[in-house]
């Protein structure tokens, strides 16, 4: 075991002397946290809507009031002619348009039935679908008031649990921990081991009385420490700046994070046994860990809405499992009994990857 110490010491000197690595580890997470924390705002508020009120009756004004008073929409333009609508969409002045027909009030009075038209900009499908849902709700509420039924046979009262305000930050911050841990561990460890191969220093280490595990563990441990520091920083900012709730046990989260860390490191080590140059290692790490962790893990896009093929891939990705764990602990207060399957998967995957890496690690140059 003592053979590891000099390698650890040396690795810390490398990191300390290379400000870029330090910046990647400490500053980038913070930067990304603020970028993601604010930019991935999936909450829809103050959507610009254009309204064409052809009816101009108290009834139609009441409907408009429902939209503008909801907080979801903000009336920016009063549309006069139908022909204007397309221009408004094209110039991005509005994201949605509400068209109230001339006979709106009349139809209600005479037939008890009426119709309005809603146009939605679907070029941003995420926002589009949220706007669609919101208008449906608003219109349903309006219809209910207009109709003279006092009581509907079935009443829908929905309550959202665990993130009642539907704050995306609460969702994004834990996700970011998953992505960044994967990035620091897999990317940096694969690069640091490959660097020794590329510069020829590995040749010296292999001739010295060091065992492969001493070289690997010694090189990787400093990154575990740094990744833990980075994760702590992200979570602290998440807790105190973005007010992410910490419902579950912090100790459980820390323990399970270590398991996830090992999975990420195992990925990095495996890559370093394949790649010959730092550049290849970097590309491989980005392709194999970063991209899937960001795109397919459910960090931003829900896994359930992916095509089946991608869902299959998502289920293999470690970040997907860790996302269930960290969101489960932080937002739902899950305990280990619920998270057990994810933990088992991560542990098994780490073991498999480590076994393959140790087998692949060459104690010789050929």
């Amino acid at each position: 075991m003592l053979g590891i110490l000099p390698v650890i010491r040396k690795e810390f000197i490398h990191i300390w002397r290379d400000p870029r690595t330090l910046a990647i580890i400490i500053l980038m997470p913070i930067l990304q946290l603020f970028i993601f924390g604010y930019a991935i705002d999936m909450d829809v508020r103050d959507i610009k809507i254009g309204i064409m009120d052809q009816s101009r009756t108290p009834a139609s004004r009441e409907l408009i009031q429902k939209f503008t008073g909801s907080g979801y929409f903000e009336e920016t333009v009063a549309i006069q002619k139908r022909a204007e609508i397309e221009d408004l969409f094209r110039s991005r002045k509005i994201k949605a348009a509400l068209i109230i027909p001339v006979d709106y009030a009349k139809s209600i009075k005479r037939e008890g039935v009426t119709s309005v038209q809603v146009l939605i900009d679907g070029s941003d499908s995420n926002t589009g679908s949220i706007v669609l849902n919101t208008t449906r709700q608003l219109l349903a509420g309006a219809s209910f008031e207009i109709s003279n039924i006092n009581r509907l046979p079935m009443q829908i009262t929905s309550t959202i649990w665990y993130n009642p305000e539907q704050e995306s930050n609460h969702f994004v911050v834990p996700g970011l921990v998953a992505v960044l841990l994967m990035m620091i561990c897999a990317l940096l460890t694969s690069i640091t081991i490959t660097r020794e191969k590329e510069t020829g220093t590995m040749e010296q280490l292999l001739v010295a009385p060091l065992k492969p595990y001493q070289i690997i563990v010694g090189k990787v441990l400093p990154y575990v420490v740094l990744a833990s520091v980075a994760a702590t920083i992200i979570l602290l900012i998440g807790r105190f700046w973005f007010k992410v709730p910490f419902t579950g046990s912090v100790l459980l989260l820390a323990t399970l994070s270590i398991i996830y860390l090992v999975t990420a490191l195992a990925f990095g080590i495996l890559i370093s046994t394949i790649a010959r140059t730092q550049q290849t290692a970097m590309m491989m790490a980005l392709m194999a860990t970063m991209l899937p962790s960001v795109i397919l893990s459910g960090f931003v896009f829900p896994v359930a809405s992916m095509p089946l093929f991608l869902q299959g891939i998502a289920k293999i990705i470690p970040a997907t499992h860790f996302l269930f764990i960290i969101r489960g602990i932080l937002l739902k207060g899950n305990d280990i009994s619920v998270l057990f399957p994810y933990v088992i998967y991560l542990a098994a995957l780490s073991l498999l990857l480590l076994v393959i890496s140790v087998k692949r690690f060459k104690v010789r140059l050929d």
Partner: protein
Amino acid sequence: MNAMDTPVILVEDLVKSYDQVSAVKSLDLEVVSGAMYGLIGPDGAGKTTLLRVLCGLLTPDSGEVQVLGFNPITELARIKDAIGYMPQRFSLYPDLSVAENMRFFADIYRIPKQERIERTERLMQFSRLEPFKDRMAHALSGGMKQKLALSCTLMHTPKLLILDEPTTGVDPVSRVEFWNILRELKDQGVTILVTTPYMDEASLCDRAALMYDGKILAEGTPDQITERYPNKLIRVITEEAHSAAEALKPNEAFESVELYGDRVHVAVRETARGIDLIKELLGRNNVTYDSVAKCEPHLEDIFVHLVKQEE
């Protein structure tokens, strides 16, 4: 058996190839304890491959290899502490200082603290790196880098030192200094196997082998090797060496005509007749010269001769 005669390195019929390109072809080598052994040959001769096999870094395709009495492939762990290997490429950490690099090597060879401090001090004096001990390795000159690399390999006082072209790319003054250090080590009883592309360095070794295309062409003490030269050698010293070589080359009376900077070496069967013929040819071609005289063959001459025979 006397300890002095025990072979520290024993290689029999070694074959090693990479992807159908053979780097070492049926090679035999024996280095006795306490020897300074030079392995001379151009780039691509297979020197590095041979050294890597000896250090257990490459697996031979076939053949017997013994280092300090052990098989470097299957019993590497038993000899790691006794070998010091300095790869051809500078393999230290450029972002670590001279002292930090030495400390790292002392630590991975598990040298106790007191011993480490004493030895570092001694090696710093020996290599004259003391004034640069806090300088980053990347900021050292070529010669200093090599001295640092050697110092790092010496931290654990190896019995066998394997050096791969330690003086390539090093200025002449530092080269002399480096060889003086190797001499001292040899006097302390360290067995040294060193490769070099410089023929003049071979003559500094007790024994040498000329290596070319994966084979050893000649082996022995430097004198034994030069004795094998079959021709007489005449040296022409001239400022117009190039024109001189041009004038002499077409003549079939010469075994070979080689150009070395400001001189031309001409191999002949018989000295007196050769000198006359050379003078006549140079005169006819209006080439002026400082001297045309018999000379002793150097390793370079025998090497060129053997390579020609080989081809």
